[in-house]
């Protein structure tokens, strides 16, 4: 699960392609705020920015590469914001 500022959309999409990750689910215009720092991204007049969220199911060996790329995106400008969370898929159809 990757949540990111909409401003990162293109980079994220390119990253997935780059890593040959085909399947994903994307939610546009989701809201959220960070646990420690950073501005809320909640699409109000006060905090106009919005996030998107992507869920993608990948092999375990690709996870590190993906997190690595995400970190690279984040350091461009930390204020913009991108986060990834990994958990196991118990079952799938």
């Amino acid at each position, binding site marked *: 699960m990757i949540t990111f*500022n*909409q*401003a*990162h*959309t*293109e*980079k994220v999409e390119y990253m997935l392609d780059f890593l040959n990750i085909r399947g994903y689910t994307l939610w546009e215009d989701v809201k959220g705020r960070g646990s420690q720092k950073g*501005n809320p991204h909640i699409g109000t*007049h*006060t*905090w*106009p*920015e*919005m996030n998107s969220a992507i869920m993608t199911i990948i092999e375990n060996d690709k996870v590190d590469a993906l997190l690595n790329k995400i970190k690279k995106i984040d350091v*461009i*400008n930390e*204020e*913009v914001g991108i986060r990834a969370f990994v958990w196991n898929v118990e079952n799938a159809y």
Partner: protein
Amino acid sequence: MSIYKTAVNKPISTLMVFVGLIVMGLYSIRSIPIDLYPEIEPPFLSVMTAYPGANAYEIETNITRLLEDQLNTVENLKEISSITTDNLSLIFMEFEWDINLDVASNEIRDVLERILDFLPEDANRPTLFRFNTSMMPILFYAVTAEESYMGLNKTLDDILINPLNRVSGIGSVGMIGAPTRVVYVELDPRRVEAHNLTLEQVANVISAENFNLPSGNIKMGSLDYPVRIQGEFEESYEIENLVVGNFQGRPVYLRDIGKVEDRQRDISQDERIAGGQGLRMFVQKQTGANTIQIARDVKAMMEELLPQLPPDVEVKEILDTSDFILSSINNLSRTLLFALFFVMLVVLVFLGKWRATFIVVLTIPISLIVAFIYLFISGNTINIISLSSLAIAIGMVVDDAIVVLENISRHVERGSNPREAAIYATNEVWLSVIITTLVVVAVFFPLTLVGGLTGVMFNQLGWIVTITVITSTIAAITLTPMLSSKLFTLKKKVERRRPMSWENTFGELFKKLDNFYESTLRFALRHKRLVAFSALGIFIGTLMLMRFIGTDFMPQADESSINGNVELQTGIRVEETVRVAKKIEELIVTHVPENEIYFTSSGADDEGGFFSLFNQGGSNTISFGVRLVPPGERQRSTFEIAEDLRMRLAEFPEIVNYSVGFGGGGFGDNDVKVEIFGYDFNTTTELAHTIRDRIEAIPGAREVAISRQEEKPEIMIKLDKEKMALHGLNSFQVSNSVRNRIAGLRASIFREQGEEYDIIVRYSEEYRNTLNDIGQISVMSQTGNRVKLKEIASIEEYWSPPNIERKGRERVVSVSAIPHDISLGELAGEIRTAIADVEVPSDIMINIGGAYEDQVSAFMDLALLMLLSLILVFLVMASQFESFRTPFVIMFSIPFSFSGVILALFITGTTLSVIAALGAVLLIGIVVKNGIVLVDFINLMRDRGLALNEAITVAGKNRLRPVLMTAMTTILGMLPLAVMAGEGSEIWRPMGIAVIGGLVFSTMVTLVLIPVMYGFIAKSGQRNKKEKLRKKMQFLIENNGTH
């Protein structure tokens, strides 16, 4: 999918849409006619009824009053007034603006139809006239000639006028003061009587001899010959040889009893051009035709035609309205270019990036071009109103693009890809961009609803600004993000700064400015009360200055032309008038070296016609005109020259009354009229004189004149009915006989080369120019006896008023004055005090009107407009902020914009005209916009959790540049309007001054006072939402406590 996302994702479509707009716009520009003002159809209709031979009194009772009573029932009629002179009744009807004049005209025709039977039989049918500004002649030529003067009329007709009439768009070409040829048969009454003839008999013979008659056909052989009797005179001298009767068995030839003179008509009007004999020729255009185009075509045609004229005929242009239009429009176009340049400069200085500047400035031509499409579709013209509207809009249309662009570049600097930044950054600001636009629209849109004369100007301004601002907003949220996504590049972080780069010059300057502002703001927030009170002090102080600012209706423009009217002793013969006219010519030659050409016209054309509607006068009036060289080539302004002429005319002992005015097609007079209503001539005239004396004592009053002309001597023939009855005569016969002998009887028409000339039979002048001569006129009775006029009538000389004016169906006389060196409002005030203690009889009413009346009503309109704008602006802001208080904070800057206006007017010595007041109204929108930008950001900072004062300071520092930038673009956009000199610039200069003054002042106030006021109001619990929320959620906290 949102509009800006579509725009960014489909750059080519977006580009095509805008290119399409530009193409359509350019096409429109090509086909929009150019004119000075928007076409106005003043809601005036007039009814003219001629009653030849009747004097003003009779016409008033028999025609004017009758018509007025009936016409008064016409719907939507605002005011009815009339002028009745000898021979003529003229009724003017003013309707409400915005009504359909066709309907009104039809209604009037119905009324006239109904009333026709009640009018005197000899009166002509009343005719309805409808005015339109496009009826005013667009070109005036002076034609002078020496040897060919006699036939000038015909020469011009053949060589110039007929070909010119073929130019498309020309309404008509006419002549004033053309010599017309008449064949006079002048009889000697003694000889006529000695031969036992009468004048009527002679006329009958002439008429009977002068005709052709087709008389059937004759078949001869194989041919069929039509037979025609040819009796018409081929030469005018043939008339002399006519046999008019028999006396003692011998034929009496006409030459025995009189003489035939083939010459020009007796003068009643004399045109002199540049000191020589001549006439004036004028060109009128068709409604809706392009003045500039026609003037150009006519001039080109004239070039071709002039060589065909006889060598002594000289044609010179006196007035070319297209000149003034063209130079005004060129002037304004230059103003627009300057404004564009200044705005670009401001954007460049503030942003420091060429590409960004390009993107922002691009919205200007696009918005302006859409305005042209509007003009084209709505059938308007390019005129000084529409162009100055564009100049006003130019500084405003960049604002939205700036806001969007700034946010995009912020995102790009944070490392976003330009395409994404364009979408998401626009998403963040598009709503507030639309709302600030709404505020501006809230101010300008009501302008489109104004009616009346001022409405004509304001409607276009309202529409144009509304349309351009809306277009600019649309462009800002589509084109701007699209271009940004294409043109912006990801900047490399480390860039070597050149010593003269933007960052090192203006960037540093702005940083210093930011810091200075921050410290000022902190100081102000610590001393809120001091700031508030000093602001109040400034406001009251400037209000005091208001007393020193005069009020005017419309600024007067220097149109490089002077025209005047001079009135001599009534009843004076035209030959005497011409003598004075020559003196005036000398005056012009010696004292107005700036003249380009001048003309004088003495007397009046008694034939009536189009121009007699504008020109009332008699043998005692002279009208003159001087065309001056352009303003750049002379030292004195038109107004100074006019004032100089006035002074010199005042020295003529012969001149009773004079007036000197300027310009042609402007928005009317600039005068104050004191109207005296009352029936009795003597009392009202006396009162008018008293009032005139009082007004003349006012130093700033000029050309104080009484509208009622001096009574003029008249010879009245009072018929004795009884004596007439004894001779078997009636009034009709007698008066006709007298008329035929003095004015002349049109016996027949003399034809030569397709032209027709009147043959007029009358008594020779030497037998009809004393009272005794008139008494000697003999009338043939039924029994064939000759009866001398003095036997059946008494002949007296008496005085009669030459004109009777009425307004609202009551007799009125008005005393008018125009201001010099003081404002119209001041003059009206002084007149009011000056005549306050004049004793007015109870049946007489006095009213102060004239242009002053229009001014008052225009200011009332503006006040209403301002109220409406304020309410609308408040509505928009209150809904944006979801608050009643915040809009008030922002609106605090409005009074100070007015302070700024007053200050600017005071410093520049400009009067408060309707135009300047309009500028003040416009300020509401512009000023509030700045406030919104600031307050919105303070709110944002507070919501983001900053403490009150900190939020204010941070927001202030952050928004300083955008506020300064939008203010500067508007100010500099207006600057050319305020300072450029040139023909026509006087009209819009007050607006430029007002807006610049108001904006400079209120921007300073916005930046300091609004944060302070925000501090005041916020303290008393504006943003206590958190506290409220805490109270509401109390149960949660308590629960937590127990666990």
